[in-house]
Every structure is written in structure tokens, then in C-alpha cells.
């Protein structure tokens, strides 16, 4: 079949459209800055320089990116099964609990033993926390959006209780556990890179970043190249056809939620084993929720999720510089920009599409004539 004049090239939708949407979001953010008597140019400069200006800032950006990749993949996997997992925050929190418990119990053992245990615990605890809403959805029809939100609150309450009353380091007032033995800490990027002769300043970037990229690759294989992924997608796209094909939707729902929770739980590896080295209150810091935006922007594809996670990581890091550099703006400006990015890339995704496609259609038609 030959391409008709209404077909725009694929890259217009895949690359150009997101870029145009981003530009629109930043342009509007610039107007907000202007209204506050600040220069939009300076705002963009501070943001960009804050995120990528030095190797140190790059390290911070990638550290945030790591957590966002895990959280975004979690949302994406559930989404392929037609589920909206809002509970990434709670699952990350409980995943971190698993990491903490393993480290508190075994941090005298060698790193090579503790690391797999911690990874399993992060995924296992996160998966268990998502399994319950999954089971309720599959067997009882309780909507997973509602139950996962509830489970976020339960996770927060549980962690507060544990950290205040049970796991707290004796003789201190702040609700934290003791620090884990240094031997089990995840290697930091600057340690490695300096060791092989690349000067890298200190930043929280650690081995988890590699795990995140590996997780993205595994999710890609799982979703598109295994029969489990096939069955999961079938349920997500057409449950009746799945039943016809002998697939049990309730089983797929439970499995998808467990995998989703396991991925969210890995946020705990980055935060607890990589950076804080102890359990503390509120360490997921909203990353689980940002994962939703990341997955939406990344169109639930692992590559898209990684790119979107990088964008949000950069906004997070660059945004923290704004309040230092610009008198009339504070950190909340970043929330405004994030909101605009989500608005343009998520809710208004197709705002510019018809016009952009028409533009390229005309060019193509002209070229064909």
C-alpha cells in the first residue's frame, strides 16, 4: 500500500511532538517567571545549568532519575495490564523497609551476600504491598486505584509506627534506625569513576542507576518478548479476548500488580542502600507519584520511561538551584514547571498533533507532486 497524503512520518509523533509539547510547557513557565519579575532566560539557564552544568549536578540529576525510572516502570507494567497503580509511593516505602530489615539483620555479612538479599527484599516487600490490592481487584472487584491510595496511607502509618516505636536507634530522638555497616553500602559513582581515573565529584549517584537501566531492559523483554507479557497485554487490551484465549484475567492482574510493586520497591535500594544507609521517615519523598507522570510521558515504554525520568530528574535537581539563584522564585516554581510539563505532555498531548501532522503532510504531498 502506498502512503496517502494524510500520513505524516512516524518521527513527528514520536520525537517532534513531545519536544514541541515540552517547549510549550517551558514557554508558559517562562511567562509565569515574567509575571514574577524574573527573567525567563535566566530561569531556563539556572534550571539547565543546575541539572547538567557540572559533573556534580549531573550526578544528582541521575540519582533522582534512578528512582524515577523504578517508579515509572512500576506504573508502566501495571498499565499494560489495564491497571492504574497509584500505590508506587507506599510500595517504595515498604520496599525500603525490606532493604532496611535485611541490612539491620545481616550487615555484618559481606556485601556480595547482602546485596542480593536486599534486592530480593526490596522487590518482595514492594510486591507483597501491591499484591493485596491486586488480589482485591482480581477476586473482589475493589478498584485498584482506590485500594492502592489507601495502601499508601497504611504504609506511611506503619512506617511511622515502626520507626518511632520499634526500629528506632535506642537513645536518640529522631525516628531513624541506626546506620548500616559501611561494608554493605552501595558503591557510589564517584568512588568507581575516580578509581579508574575519571575525576567525579561526590554525589549520591550509585550502582542503583545501573540496576534501573537493567530493570528497564528486563521490563522491555518481559512485556514484549515473553508469553507472560503477551498474556498480560492481552488482558490489558481486551479482557474478553484474553478469557477466550484461555488466560485468567484475575491471575494476570495479581501478577502485574506484584511485578509493579516489586519495581516500585526497588526505589528503596537507591534511597536506603545507596544514599541514606539507614531507614528514616518519608524517604520516598513523592517519587512514587512522580512515577505516574513519568510513565504517562514515557508512554509506558521502558525507553520513554527512562527519558521521561531523566527530564524529571533534571527538573528536580535544577529546580533546587532556583531558590538560591533567583530572588523572587522558590522551589515551588519547579512544581509549577512539572505541572505544566504533565499538562502539555499528558493531558494536552494531542494539542499540536493535527497541526504538526498537517504541516508534514503538506510537505510530503508537495514532494510527491
Amino acid at each position, binding site marked *: 500500500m502506498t502512503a*496517502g497524503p494524510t500520513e505524516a512520518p512516524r518521527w513527528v509523533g514520536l520525537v517532534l511532538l513531545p519536544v514541541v509539547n515540552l517547549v510549550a510547557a517551558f514557554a508558559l513557565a517562562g511567562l509565569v517567571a515574567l509575571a514574577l519579575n524574573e527573567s525567563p532566560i535566566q530561569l531556563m539557564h539556572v534550571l539547565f545549568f543546575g541539572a547538567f552544568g557540572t559533573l556534580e549536578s549531573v550526578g544528582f540529576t541521575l540519582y533522582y532519575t534512578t528512582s524515577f525510572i523504578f517508579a515509572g516502570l512500576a506504573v508502566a507494567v501495571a498499565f499494560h495490564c489495564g491497571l492504574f497503580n497509584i500505590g508506587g509511593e507506599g510500595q517504595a516505602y515498604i520496599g525500603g523497609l525490606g532493604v532496611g530489615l535485611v541490612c539491620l539483620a545481616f550487615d555484618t555479612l559481606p556485601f556480595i551476600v547482602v546485596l542480593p538479599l536486599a534486592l530480593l527484599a526490596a522487590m518482595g516487600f514492594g510486591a507483597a504491598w501491591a499484591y493485596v490490592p491486586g488480589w482485591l481487584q482480581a477476586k473482589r472487584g475493589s478498584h485498584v486505584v482506590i485500594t492502592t491510595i489507601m495502601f499508601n496511607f497504611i504504609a506511611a502509618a506503619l512506617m511511622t509506627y515502626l520507626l518511632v516505636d520499634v526500629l528506632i536507634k535506642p537513645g536518640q530522638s529522631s525516628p531513624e534506625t541506626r546506620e548500616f555497616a559501611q561494608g554493605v553500602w552501595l558503591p557510589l559513582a564517584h568512588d568507581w569513576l575516580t578509581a579508574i581515573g575519571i575525576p567525579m565529584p561526590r554525589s549520591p549517584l550509585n550502582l542503583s542507576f545501573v540496576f534501573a537501566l537493567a530493570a528497564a531492559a528486563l521490563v522491555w523483554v518481559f512485556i514484549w518478548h515473553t*508469553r507472560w507479557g503477551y*498474556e498480560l497485554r492481552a488482558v490489558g*487490551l*481486551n479482557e474478553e*479476548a484474553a478469557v*477466550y*484465549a*484461555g488466560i485468567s484475567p484475575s491471575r494476570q492482574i495479581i501478577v502485574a500488580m506484584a511485578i509493579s510493586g516489586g519495581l516500585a520497591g526497588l526505589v528503596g535500594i537507591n534511597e536506603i542502600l545507596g544514599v541514606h544507609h539507614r531507614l528514616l521517615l518519608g524517604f520516598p519523598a513523592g517519587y512514587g507519584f512522580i512515577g505516574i507522570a513519568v510513565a504517562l510521558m514515557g508512554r509506558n515504554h521502558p525507553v520513554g520511561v527512562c527519558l521521561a525520568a531523566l527530564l524529571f530528574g533534571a527538573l528536580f535537581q535544577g529546580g533546587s538551584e532556583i531558590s538560591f539563584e533567583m530572588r523572587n522564585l522558590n522551589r515551588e516554581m519547579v512544581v509549577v514547571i512539572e505541572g505544566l510539563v504533565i499538562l502539555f505532555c499528558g493531558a494536552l498531548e494531542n494539542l499540536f498533533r493535527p497541526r504538526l501532522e498537517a504541516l508534514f503532510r503538506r510537505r510530503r504531498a508537495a514532494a510527491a507532486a
Partner: protein
Amino acid sequence: MTGNDRPDSRRGAPPEPAALELIGIEKWFGPVHANSGVSLRVARGSIHGVIGENGAGKSTLMSIVYGYHRPDAGEVRIAGRAVAIGRPADAIAAGIGMVHQHFMLVDTFTVLENIVLGAEGGALLRGGLAQARAELSRLAREYQLDVDPDALVGELPVGLQQRVEILKALYRGAQILILDEPTAVLTPQEADHLFRILRLWRDQGRTVILITHKLREVMAITDRVTVMRRGEVVDTVDTASTSREQLAEMMVGRRVILRVQKAPAKPGKDVLRVEHLDVVDGRGVRRVKDASFAVRAGEIVGIAGVSGNGQSELLAAIAGLLQPSAGRIVYHDRDLADASDGEPARRARRMKLAHVPEDRHRMGMVVSFSAYDSAILGYQDDAELNRGVILSRGAAIDRCARLMDAYDVRPGRPLLKSANFSGGNQQKIVLGRELDRDPDLLLVGQPTRGVDIGAIEFIHRRLIEMRDRGKAILLVSVELDEILALADRILVMFDGAIVGEIDAAAADERELGLMMAGAREAA
């Protein structure tokens, strides 16, 4: 009679101006040229048929007339004046009414509420409803379209739901009525009634456009007929001067055999025995009532009945998709209703029981999957397709390409999205997938619903071939023609029960129609 001078459209040159005229309509959907330079004149006071294979562009054309799509080029003229129809409201204002193949009704509203929907007339419902009630009873009298205005639409039989759709169009003052495959859900008697109404309508000087694939209906009721193929108009002819064979040839572009050739069946032993089967649906309604029958190797058993009389549930229960509440389904001497080992649908497939479901969009395939993914649905466990944990994309594509080749699927591109194939080609993918494993029993529901003539011929031939190889086929179809053409034995279902069994050779359409309507039990 309101029509004062009935135009003599049935005898050659239509008078000026035409009720509806389309000039040079062009429409592209992505790479698909759905309408290419389509020009069409529909004379006032005539019944005009538009026929063509699936994907020939007739539905697109009518969607343009009704304002669902804007044409890329071309002009729509109504009563001689060019009109811009951007949305359905414009079409309604221009006096066009449409009865869709899939009804656009709100099930939980009453007939009256459905009829005023979109034309409520003011913020408060009361006045509009009272006016509508009066108007409705006038229309019902005038056109013999009796419906209880206070009945819930969801509780009406499909035939009456269609009547509500027609009343909706009439209530909005339609002068031109477009009907899309209107008889698909009707018994022969109901279809006759519909045709009487349409004729009455025409005789009052209004205009009917009938989109259909049933050549018999075109011959029976239309004055003129436009044949479309691949987005273009092949020709517009007077119905009186053409024949079914000629129309079929124009539609397909080659000669087609309308009647399948088949030798007498040589049935062997029972492959499937259904004994006292009861199926109760999720809402507690008893859908299948005490059904008992057998299907033997080497025969096609057809289940006739108006849509919604339990055939779908019967088929679903045998396929393992619905748990029967009582009775036995014995296949190869094993009771399928006993769900003790594993997912019943998966087990049935392993036991060489294949199922082509009634609704390929809802069940037979995942339309947003690529064709190769849809082509392995239900067989994703096959050793041939898996390399360890990896489901081999290459192997799936190879299988799909092979099926597309064997079943003449066009375009033969496994990577194309399933939704982008025409209905007939989607059906061939599903049929190919299910027949590929050489099943002993094939359950097949509506094998040619929404499928074009060329493909119908192909599919029917495949089913006969399978029967002649000694396989058993249970066929459910609401198309009586199809049952008569394929089946060796015919069971008639009405209200969940099997009300009769007829030898296909001795079957007569009127008799079957009466049984389908529950009016007569077979001797």
C-alpha cells in the same frame, strides 16, 4: 399521502433536484483511500441501495453524509443545495436520519427518553416529553411502528430497538433515512415488516438509502442500486434491469458462486454430545434451557435463531467460556463441564476443539495487537513459538505470514495492526488461526458477519472442506441463508431452548422463520 407528485425515479432519468447528491467525495484514513471520487445521486421518493464488500467505503460515505467525518474533498448537496455537514446535528437539521447497524440507544432510558435524546427542547424535560409522546403515537399510527413509549429500551427485543431507532429519525423530521445493514438482527418476518414500512415511506415522497450486503434484499426492495468497490463507485443501475449475479460480480470484480457446492454429508460417530445443558448468566437469567443434541464427525450442525435467543451462551459454554449450571458437555467421551483441571478454554484448545467466536472484535482478536500477535491468540503456549522464556516474535510472524498466505488475507502484512484489516480479512485471520491446528470440532459463530461476498465464498468453502475431511462443525448464525447453505442438520433455538430440528435438505425458510419466532414447534 403527503407526497403530492411522486417522481418516477424507478423509470430511468431521475428528476431535478436529487434528494441527495454527492459529488467527487474524497476521504483518506491514514494510508487508506476510503472514498475516491465518489459521486452519487439519490432521487427523491426512491429507495436507493448502496452495496459493496466490507471496506468498499460505503460506511465511510454514509458517515460523511451524516457528519461523523469530513470529506477531504467533494461536495454534498441536499435538494440541490450544497451543504456543509460538519457534525451529525447539521445532518439532522438538513433532514437526514440514520439507523446504525449498532444501535445508538441508552439501554436504561425509556423509549420516549431515547427518542427525545438530543432534541429535548428546553431545560425541563416535561414539555418535550409530552410533545414527543403525542408525536410518537401519531408516527406509530401512520407507519405501523407500535412501541410502548414507557418501556425500557434495554428490555426490548432487538427488532423493537431498531424500531425505536427509526422512530428517533422520524421524530427529528428526517426526509432522507439511511439504514445500515438493518436486517441483520431481524427474523424474515420482521424484515418483511420493515420493508413494508420503507415502501410506505417512499410512496410518501421521502427517500431511503439502504446499505446492505444482502443481494436478495437489494433486489426485493430498492429502485436503484449503487455498487462500490475499493472506495470507488463501480456503477449505479436500475434494480429492475440487473440481477443478483451481476451485482455480485460488480462488487467483487470477478464472477462469484453464490451457492456453495457441497456433496451430501457422511456423518460418523458423535464427537460432541450436549446433554440437558443449562446456562445461567451473571444476572441470574436462564439463557440456555435444557439443551440436548449431538454433533457427529463429518457433518455441519447449524443453529438457527434470532440473535439473543441463547445461541451465544450455548456456544460459549461449550467453548469453556461460561460455566454451565447444569448438564453435561461430552467431547470425545470426556465431560468438558467438569472444570477440575485447569482453564477450560485452554484445555479445550489442547483437546483440538477450536472456536471462532461470534464477535471477532470483542473476543476473537485484540484489535490493538499487531496481526501476528492476534494470529497466535490462544496458542501463545505452543512449543513452536517459544524459545525458553522468550516468545519468539520471528516465529509468530512466520506463522502469521503462512496463515495469511493460506487464507488469502490482504494485505499480507503480519506487522500491521489487527484493527487496520477489513472485517473479512480479520475473520480470515481468526479462522486461519483456529483451523491451522486441524481441530476435530470447530465451534463457529457468525462466520461471515460483516464479511464481504468474496470472503464469504472463501470461508464457506473452507468450512465444507473441513467437514469433508471428517471433522465436526457446530455453526451458529443469525443469517438464515448461511445456515441453509452450510448446515446438514438445523436446530432452531428460541428463548434458550432448542425448539426444533430439521434436516437441511427438507428445510423451508418460512417454516424456519416461524420456529425462530417461537410460533411453531417442529413435529
